């Protein structure tokens, strides 16, 4: 299930849903991305997350289906927040359940790497001096390209 929302989320609630009543599940891997208060040498006071409604959901669904083609996982859950966020806020959640840990780890990291480089979200940082669009990072592109080898 994929959610794009302004509201915060509860890790426990998502975890319970991934775990729910399925005794074949042996492994649950979760990733939570939090807002840091520091980037490129500046204090960050806040963040604004813009996205492309419609395409966002489509691209995340496509990333999930690619993950499922690669690994036999059970459930996948993605939540991405949009709008205004403050330091230490939760931004993104990816949770994967599966029979074995290797698959759950790989699928979870793959989804994050692809989300970072393919899902249409853009961050605008608010600093003391004003606001600025965040630049894409080469390290994210490199992380995503690893999976194509």
């Amino acid at each position, binding site marked *: 299930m994929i959610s794009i929302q302004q509201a915060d989320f509860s890790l426990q609630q998502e975890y319970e849903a991934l775990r729910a009543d399925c005794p074949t599940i042996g492994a649950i891997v979760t990733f939570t991305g939090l807002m840091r208060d520091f980037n490129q040498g500046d204090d960050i006071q806040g963040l604004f997350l813009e996205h492309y409604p419609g395409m966002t959901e489509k691209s995340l669904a496509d990333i999930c289906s690619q993950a499922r083609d690669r690994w036999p996982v059970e459930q996948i859950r993605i939540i991405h927040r949009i709008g205004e966020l403050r330091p230490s806020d939760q931004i993104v959640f990816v949770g994967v359940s599966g029979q074995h840990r290797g698959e759950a780890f790989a699928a979870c990291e793959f989804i994050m790497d692809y989300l970072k*480089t393919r899902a249409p*979200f853009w961050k605008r940082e608010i600093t003391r001096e004003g606001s600025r669009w965040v630049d894409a990072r080469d390290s994210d592109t490199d992380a995503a390209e690893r999976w194509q080898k």
Partner: protein
Amino acid sequence: MIRIKYFARLREAVGQREESLPLPESVATVTDLRDFLGRRDEAWQQAMQMGGLLVAVNQTVVDWNQPLSGDEEVAFFPPVTGG
């Protein structure tokens, strides 16, 4: 009609969120559309040459040689930075 959307840094650079227009005669691909828009004025020209610019047709990122028939949703945007 082609529906065109602009996002993030690009949206600010062109001062517009979206627009619709009939497919111009000179436009057969998304590259043609970008060039067409870039001829509007200097701000547009600079914006449409933004480094790393991406284009999506009907909400899927495509190559710059993707053809257009005139009834698509086309979006231009800078590299994504979510997550």
